[in-house]
């Protein structure tokens, strides 16, 4: 994974980028950590039986990576997206966030230039929401 951060977080526009090549190991680690052990994420045969080309990444793994380019996680007030294309091991996805005054447009595009996530949006509160002062 590689990430880039640029811009002024205090105001104006900030851009963030994260490039991730998905692996089976990463998807399996996410399945374990999240408790979502649906076989379509872990077992090629089960995935094919369900009409998929093979195992796919969890939508919530993609969204977790998308959240990384949304900005300060403690300030995240809203996060939403649509999972438009399946992501499989070997796919390289570029996650981008562009923040303007607390509103963030989020995109995720794979190596073929296809949007794997659409309608990605986040909203940041002026200060942290994590209950710490």
């Amino acid at each position, binding site marked *: *994974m590689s990430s880039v951060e640029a811009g002024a977080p205090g105001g104006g526009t900030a851009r963030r980028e994260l490039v*991730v090549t998905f692996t089976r190991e*990463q998807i399996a*680690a*996410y399945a*374990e*950590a*999240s*408790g*979502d052990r*649906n*076989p*379509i994420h872990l077992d090629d045969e*089960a995935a094919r*039986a*369900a*009409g998929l080309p093979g195992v796919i990444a*969890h*939508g*919530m*793994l993609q*969204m*977790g*990576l998308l*959240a*990384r380019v949304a900005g300060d*996680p*403690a300030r*995240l*007030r*809203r*996060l*939403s*997206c*649509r*999972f438009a294309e*399946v992501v499989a091991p070997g796919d390289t996805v570029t996650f981008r966030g562009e923040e303007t005054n607390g509103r963030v447009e989020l995109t995720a595009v794979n190596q073929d230039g296809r949007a794997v996530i659409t*309608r990605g949006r986040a909203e940041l509160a002026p200060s942290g*929401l*994590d*209950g*710490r002062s």
Partner: protein
Amino acid sequence: MAFLIEAEHVAAFARALGVDPERGVPPTYAAVYALGTTVPQLFSDPEAAVDVAHLLHAEQEFAWERHPRVGETVVARGRVAEDVERRGVRLLTFETEVTAGGERLCTSRARFVIRGSPR
């Protein structure tokens, strides 16, 4: 369902997303405390009759009043908000409200596509 936000579990989740486990609870840990605690009810509900392997996450929205802290217990309540069929595909929308100490913490709206199983 009550769920304890536990340090080791949060850290494993953070590492799976490549984020620093020291930086608190990742926002999308809501996948665990909001979705993981309530969505599986769908699978065990004979009326919903959902085959988990045919369930694809199509859309997700989270809104937070605040983020939970490690050591805190949250309570999640889920309900089916919508169950419709469009062009032979079943769309299930599941809403979850998460509270802590009686106060709202997070709201989740998850939409799933159930492929190949029109009723």
